[in-house]
């Protein structure tokens, strides 16, 4: 089996995540959609790494990307909790009032 089917799945994940990101106003929902996009990107990275001449390099970058994504989730969820504590809502349209 070639890597082409894996790339097709990654493109589908990217499209579904993009739809969720663009169509939602809820901060947590947008974060979850961004994570679906991240999963699609990660799968594309590893598929292309497997097809390239240097698979270990792609694997190393993938490990670093997963670690950074875990950190990013922590930051984003903390912001959402703080926003909910201060405003009682996680609607991104109300973010402009989220000052100080």
């Amino acid at each position, binding site marked *: *089996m070639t*890597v082409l089917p894996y790339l*097709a799945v990654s493109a589908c994940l990217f*499209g579904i995540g993009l739809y969720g990101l663009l169509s939602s106003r*809820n901060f947590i929902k947008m974060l979850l959609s961004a994570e679906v996009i991240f999963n699609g990107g990660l*799968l594309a990275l590893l598929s292309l790494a497997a*097809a390239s001449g240097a698979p270990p390099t792609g694997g190393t970058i993938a*490990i670093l990307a997963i670690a950074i994504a875990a950190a990013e989730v922590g930051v984003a969820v*903390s912001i959402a909790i703080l926003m*909910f504590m201060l405003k009682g809502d996680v609607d991104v349209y109300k973010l402009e009032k989220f000052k100080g």
Partner: protein
Amino acid sequence: MFQANIVEGLIFTLAAALTIASAALVVSAKSLVYSAFFLALVGAGNAVFMAMLGFPVISLFQLSVYVGAAVTFILFSITMFRKPVRIEPTAGILALDAAVLATAGLLYAFQSVTGTPVSVGFKEISSLLIGKYRFALIIASLALVTTLIEAITLAMRGEMK
């Protein structure tokens, strides 16, 4: 050989169906708890693909760090909201157009890619991590520590209020 190909194809089809259906449910579920649960399934499906592509170490890392820590963290954080979070009606058609266009563009770009999965072991990846990519590893570690400090600070701020 032929039987191995059939089994591989079957596993791929099942994992692809699970991953894509779970991703659709992440976006469409009315409850954030269910969305986070389906994101864990997307991560698990992705881990299956990683193992099939020849990256078993990264597959385990994905399961332990991403599914085991990040998604579980989201799931527990959602329970911290004292009242149910409202989910507004979606802004449908434009978002759908953009998503279909992006998917079609990616499929077109990927169609010329050739190659077959390889096998990459722990030794190659760890030697790259502590060699060529050691600064990137330090930065990733610092990012994780910073997140930990930030989470503690926010928790203490909430406690003080």
